[in-house]
Structures are given as structure tokens and as C-alpha cells.
């Protein structure tokens, strides 16, 4: 762990100053016209843990992220951060309080270089007016790029790098603001197997520093390996919560993913534990996430 990270870690354990979860999503409902994208969702994210949010496409995962980060107003319900209701707090102020997020549909600053992307984030974190002053964060930026593993791309334009790299760039950009809560929206799509493994280690490290990580992810191997807690969304509702082992065995989850309508059939699969739910079927191509974005 880098020295940079160690200082972060210290500050995180000390900060907050309240008991209970860092993030609390409390009975959040989001409706688009007649469509209910999120229905009475309740979950939490705690410092030092990686929480997974999974579910089929259109289940409302990204919409949840939009509500938490402030890009989408919930129809009902509250979002509490560090014990305070932030439901009507503007996006940028939630970020100042310690939320950071990445996007499913990339939002990298395409006309800037990878390094400048992270520099901008650091500048914004320091404050716009201080942005006039020459930056003294050169080393930290390169250390960050190194840490997420994209140092080789530092001088490339952000719209010319591969998708997986751009997702890591968004993570690095978040980390420049030293967030207490990281919202990662399908961070591993576009990464190959080795890169995904390295990414999993990075996530564990980040959590070990005391950050809370909430992650929407389709790669079940990664989710099962990295997450402490998993919530499964289907049609906007949470149908199951628990540690990876519990989630694997949950019949409702298997039904949602595999479409078994017959209880017995689902039971049969449950009995054999995961092998029935093979990776191929559970990794759902991230083609359509229409509702949220």
C-alpha cells in the first residue's frame, strides 16, 4: 500500500463521527412516467466493505447510483450519508462530502489527456479558486495512475484509450478527490482476465483503507470474489441480500437470472449449489440499461 493510501486510510477511520452505516438508501422509489425503475430499495454501504449491487439489465442499478450521487431525484425515499439526509443535496456538494462515482456509459473528459483528466479532478477537489494557483500535485497524480494501472496511457487522449482503461481512468479520477464512498458502475467491463484480477485486488485494498465501495457489476466471478455483501435487484426491487455464499444459493436470485418459473426446478439447481449457475449464464451482456440513463 502506498504512503498516500495510508494517510487516506487513517483519515477515513477517524472521520464520519457517527455510528451506523456510511450510506443508507432508505425506501427509495424512482418512477419514470408509469415505469417504476426502483421500488422501495433499502440497502447500506459500510466503511471497509465492498457491497455488490447485481441484477439483470434494466433492474434499476444505475438509477440507484444516480439517486445516490444526486443526478436523479427519487420520487420517494431518502438517501442518508454519514447519518445526514442528503436527498436534496446538489451533486457537487455530495461529492465534497465524500462521494465519488464512475459511470456505466463513460464520462471521461475526451479532449483531455489521461493525466489531465485526473489533474482536473484534483483541481476541482482543491477548489476552483485555488485552481488559479499552479498545481503541486504532479507526483500524486502519477502515483494514482500507477496505482490503478494506467500509467502507460498517461499522455494519451482520453477518448482514444480502450474502454476498460477509460473505466480505470474514471476510478483514478474519483480517487483524486479521496472519497469515503466509491460508487463503481460496471467497473470491470472491458478488462481482460488478468486485469480483472488486479482490479479485484485494488478494490480490496481500497476497502482496506476504510472506504465504502458500492459496485454494480456483471462479472459474477469478480463479484463473488470481492464483495462482502451483495444485494440483488430485479424490476427495481431488492429480491435478495447477503454474503456471496447466501446469494449463490438463493432460489429467487436464480429465478431472476435464469427465468425458472418452477419452484422445484429452481430447488434442484440450488441443491447442486453454483455449478448449475454457470458463469456464462450469469454474466449478462451489458447491452441495454435503458431505464436509468
Amino acid at each position, binding site marked *: 500500500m502506498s504512503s498516500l493510501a495510508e494517510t487516506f486510510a487513517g483519515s477515513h477511520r477517524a472521520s464520519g463521527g457517527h455510528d451506523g452505516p456510511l450510506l443508507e438508501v432508505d425506501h427509495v422509489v424512482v418512477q419514470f412516467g408509469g415505469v417504476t425503475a426502483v421500488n422501495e430499495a433499502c440497502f447500506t454501504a459500510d466503511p471497509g466493505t465492498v457491497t455488490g449491487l447485481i441484477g439483470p439489465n434494466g433492474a434499476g442499478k444505475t438509477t440507484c447510483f*444516480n439517486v445516490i*450521487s*444526486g*443526478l*436523479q431525484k427519487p420520487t420517494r425515499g431518502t438517501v442518508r450519508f454519514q447519518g445526514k439526509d442528503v436527498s436534496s443535496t*446538489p*451533486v*457537487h*456538494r455530495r*461529492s*465534497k462530502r465524500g*462521494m*465519488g*462515482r464512475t*459511470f456505466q*456509459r*463513460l*464520462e*471521461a*473528459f*475526451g*479532449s*483531455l*489527456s489521461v*493525466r*489531465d*483528466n485526473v*489533474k*482536473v*479532478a484534483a*483541481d*476541482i*477537489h482543491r477548489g*476552483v479558486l485555488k*485552481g*488559479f*494557483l*499552479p*498545481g503541486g500535485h504532479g507526483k500524486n497524480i502519477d502515483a494514482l495512475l500507477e496505482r490503478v494501472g494506467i500509467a502507460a496511457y498517461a*499522455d*494519451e*487522449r482520453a*477518448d*482514444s484509450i480502450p474502454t476498460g482503461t477509460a473505466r480505470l481512468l*474514471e476510478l483514478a*479520477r*474519483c480517487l*483524486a*478527490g479521496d472519497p469515503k464512498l466509491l460508487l463503481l458502475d460496471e467497473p470491470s467491463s472491458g478488462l481482460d482476465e488478468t486485469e480483472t484480477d488486479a482490479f479485484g485486488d485494488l478494490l480490496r485494498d481500497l476497502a482496506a483503507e476504510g472506504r465504502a465501495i458500492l459496485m454494480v457489476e456483471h462479472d459474477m466471478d469478480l463479484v463473488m470474489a470481492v464483495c462482502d455483501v451483495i444485494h440483488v435487484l430485479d424490476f427495481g426491487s431488492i429480491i435478495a441480500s447477503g454474503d456471496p455464499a447466501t446469494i449463490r444459493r438463493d432460489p429467487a436470485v436464480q429465478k431472476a437470472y435464469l427465468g425458472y418459473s418452477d419452484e422445484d426446478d429452481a430447488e434442484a439447481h440450488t441443491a447442486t449449489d453454483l455449478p448449475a449457475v454457470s458463469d456464462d449464464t450469469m454474466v449478462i451482456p451489458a447491452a441495454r440499461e435503458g431505464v436509468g*440513463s
Partner: protein
Amino acid sequence: MSSFLAFTIFGLVSGAAYAIAASGLVLTYSTTRVFNIAHGALGMLLSFVFWDFSVRQGMPTLLALFLVLFVVAPAIGWFLQRFVARGLGDAPVSVSLVVTVAILVATLGLAQQVWPPEARSVQPFFAGTSYEMFGFFITAHQILTIVLSLVVAVGLYVLLNRTRIGTAMRASVDNPELLKLFGGQPERVAALSWAIGTSLAALAGVLLVSTVGLDYFALLLLVINAFAAAILGRLQNLPLTFVGAMSLGLVTSYASGYLPTDGLLNSVRNVVPALFLFAVIVLMPQAQLRIGQVKGIVSAPLPSPFKALSWSGALLLGVALIAGALSEANLLLVGTAATYAIVMLSLVLLTGYGGHVSLAQITFVGVGALAYIKIDSPNLVGLLLAGLVAAGVGALVALPVIRLTGLYLALATLAFAVIMDRMIFQADFAFGFNGSLSAERLSILGYQVDSTAGYVWVMAVFFVLMGLALLVVRAGPLGRMLVALRDSPAACGTLGLDQRWFRVGLFAASAGMAGIAGALYSGLRGTVGAAEFQFFGSFTLLLLAVVFGVTSVTGAALGGVGLMMLPVLQADYPGIAGLFFVVIAVGAILLARDPNGLANQLFRLGRLLDRRFGNRIRERIPVLPVPGGSLGGMREQARAEHDANAAADHSLTTVGLGGGTATTPGPDQGPAQSKEPAGV
């Protein structure tokens, strides 16, 4: 009481016409996501066509009306959607607005070209026929207007809700890709909605022209009424749009009936629609940050400090050399070019770097000029104060719409420009009606710059200083933030940037730069009047900025010369004065999707020619000539492609280096110096 009723009826009649125009606007916007700012201009053009058919050529009125509404207007609308506005729905507002402003300017130029200014009049329909109602007369034309607005309302409702193509139209709003998958044809739907929309603009124009008169600008301004009504309906709700149009008609009518006929309040009646528009925009709900990246904006490369400084020096030297040799009149032209170039710099900051559009930049120039004259301290302090006043006004415009972005911000600036133009600038405390004020030339640190040549050089110095300052900002943290905000507002928000205040600051800075240009300009001319800061000037300014390159200082310099040349050319060739507008507009339409403009194109072209030329020379040296013509042609083609790719690669890597670290020759400053004397 009966006069009240009369004003009410009159208000409802004009409201009905606005409603027709506004529903056309809503239809095109809601199906193609392109806000056609030229909607009123098209109504104007088609009213002229109607006049031409019915009066000049003497066609029967009904035939002329039929031809305009069902042949000419739909054809124009179809053409515009097909060849001009296609694919603009997903483009950033700085592109789609520029294109529709270009359509507006082209329409105006075309109208002026085909129908040169002269007195024309169009009789109302059923002239002379009127009916007595509640003790006063209502003309058949007025009844027809109201009836037609109802027909349009019902017709649109039936079209959208009861027909197959209407369902497809509503579907294409939500997801054109999906519509395509299900066998629909979003392109055909878009073309149809533009055809109908243009036809409605024509109908509104033809109905209004007998009261408003066949005037280029009066009809152009009517679009503001349509905008206000359409925006009340959030650009998608037709019933609310009708309510908006009717209430605007009433308010306008009562204002003209009951406002005092002298003083400032008198002039309020000219700007009621603009005030209404501003109010409606301010009341809009908070805009959601848009997710989904806007791609493909390649900024012009930043020149290295050395390049920038040496070209700046060359420019100043060049101006100093030619200034001594020019006549007073030509010096004034160079000074005007310098003024415009500084204003274009303010657009480089706002539009080129920031991605926002202002339709009031010339108005800020006027504010700066007015402040400079009123402050009456012709030195650097006075100049700075004038800039600050303009900046303050700029902030005041952006502040009420702090929650909104893009289109609404631009429309707020348009409303502001019209209010200033029609009301404030002509008020007694400003320039006065048809009046002008005299200004003294600047003295710098106690030294008064009396000679025009010297003053022009000082203006060039200001251009260079502000251009360099802009480059320094762009290369620094603030410049990165600006570009980041343009690329992804949502990401900036989640990283903690309060973009609302950032945007207000950006607007203020840009207005301040324009204000300084205005202050310098008033000193150059000695006397300035309201006529020099009319709102329409901001349209041509924006278009020329885009044509010459709104992302680079070079583009600003070239654009300044170009904008100065426009009236000169129009005066020299009065026979084709309107065509110049058309040419500029077509240029802007062609170049709008690449905001780096001619400045960048010239550089690329130069590089390409150079390479080709160099290759040919190298070709002479090897012993074997190329056998066979066709093969040679292929090789030629392959090489051209290679060169084009290389040029593209080059520009990308230069940008990629970012900051001030670009080491390749900066095209940014390329042709500035050579072009400056050429324009004189």
C-alpha cells in the same frame, strides 16, 4: 370597457397566430430535438413568397396560399431537415444552435437578395369584411386567424394521437434507434415534422403580415413570441403552448393599450415578448445534468509559448508597419477589425473552450462602450471599469438562469439582447433614440493616444495581450476545468464542481472581454450610437467566429477581419448584399460540426500541400518513373489518404500533449500575420 374588450380580442387574435407558430416549433423540436431558431425567419421568408405570388404575380389569393403552405413551405422544411439539420439532435447545443442561427441569417440574406427593400403591403384576408360583436367590429381576418389556430390545434392532436405516422413521431422522440428496429423510419418522420413545422411558420407569418407589415426584422422578432409560448409548454406540451401563446398575445395587447406613451415605460411595449420569454425561462425547473457523453470535440492545438509570443510580435510589427501607410478611413477599418477580433476572443473563451452560446455578445460590446463613455475617465482605469460593468451585466444575465444550461441559456441571452436593443440602448439615459454619444480616446499612463494609427496599434496590443492571456488560462488548471466541463458536465458535478457559479463566472469573463472591446471601439470612433449594437450583429458575429475557428486565437483574428469586411463588401456590391449573408451562413453550416474552423483547415491544407509537393520533388530523384497513368493515379490517391491520416494523427497527438508542452509547430498562430494586411 369596450376598449378593454377590443384589446382582449386583438390580443387573442395575435395570440392565435403566435400559437400557430409556436406549435410548429414544438413539433420540430419534440420530434428531432433541434430547436429551430430560424422558425420566425422562415415565416418571414414565406410571407415574402406569399406576397410575391399573390401581389407581384397576381395569383388568386387562395392559390397563392395553397402553394405557399402546401408546396413551398413543406419543400423548404424537408430540404432543411434532410440536408442541414440532419443528425443535429444529438449534437451539443453549440453546434445545433449555430446551424439554426445560420439558417436564420441565410433566410434573411435570401429575402433581402430576392426582394430588395421597398414598400410592400399585404391585404388581410376578406379585406373589408367585418362583423359587429358586443358593440365593436371584428374583421373576418381576425375570425379566420382564431379559427385556423383551433384547426391547427385539433389537427395536430389528431395527427399525433390518432394516426400511425403520429405514433411514429412520438416514438421517434423517445428512441429513434428503437423506432428503426421496429420498421419505422425516423428520418422520414423528422422530415415530415420539419415540413409541417415550416408550413405552420408560414401560416403564422401570412396571418400576421397584414398587421405587422412585410418587414424582414419585425417578422424575425415574432419568433421570440413563439419561443416564449413554446417554452412555457416545455417545448413538448402543445396545450400549454397554446395557453402561453394566448396569454402572451393578451399581455402584449394590453401593454400596447394601457402603457403610457412617453418615457421608458413606452418602450417596454416593444420588449414585452422578450420580457415574457426571459420570465418563462427563469421559471423553468432545474435542468438535470445530462449523462451520456458528447463526443468528438477536438480542440485546436495550443501553440508553444515561443510560437505564440513570436507570432504576437510579428502581428504587432505588421500592424505598426502598415498603420503608417494607411488612410484614416482604412485605419478605422483596421481598428474595427481589431474590435471584432477581441469580441471573437470572448467567444473563444465562452463557446470554443466552454461550449456555451451567447446571442448577446454585441450587446455586451455596447454595454462596455456605454459604460466607458458614462464613466468618462479615458484611461486604463476607465477601460477596466467599463470591462467590469459589462462583466457584471453578463453575470446578471446568467444569474437568473443559473439552473439551466445550453439552449435556455442561449435563449435568455437573445431575450436580453432584444431588451437592450429595443429599450435600454435607445433610452434617454443611454445613447438616446437615434442618438449617439461622443467618446474620448484612451490615455495610457498619462500619454494620450491621439493619432488613429497609434490608437489602432494600441488596440492590436490589447488583442495580443488578451489572446495570450487566454492561451495561458487554457493551458492552466482553469482551462482544463473549462474543457472538462464542456466534455462532461455530469462527471464534473460528481467530482465536486459547482458548475452553476463556474458558468456565471465564465459568462461574466466573456462579457467583460466584449465590454473592453466596446470601450476601445468607442474611443476609436469618437462617436457611437445604439444602431451599432443591434441584436442581429451577434448572429453574424457567432457565425463568422465559427467559420474562422472559435477554438483558436488565430480564428478570432481572422474572424475579426472577416466581420469587418462584411459591411464593406456589402456596401461595395449592393446588388449582392444579401448573398454575403447566405455565403457566411452556408460556410457556418458546413463548418459548424468542426468548431476549429478555417484557421485549422488552412493549417491542415498547408501541411497537406507541403507534403505532396515535397513528395513530388523526392519522386524526381529516383531513377524509375511511375509506369502507367492509372497506377500512378492510384498511388496518388493512396498518398493523399496517407497524408490526410498523418495530418489527423498529428493534430491528435498535439492536443494529447495538452498543457503548454506542445512542441510541434503551433498552427494556432499560423496565418494570422499574413492575413491581417490582406484584409485591410
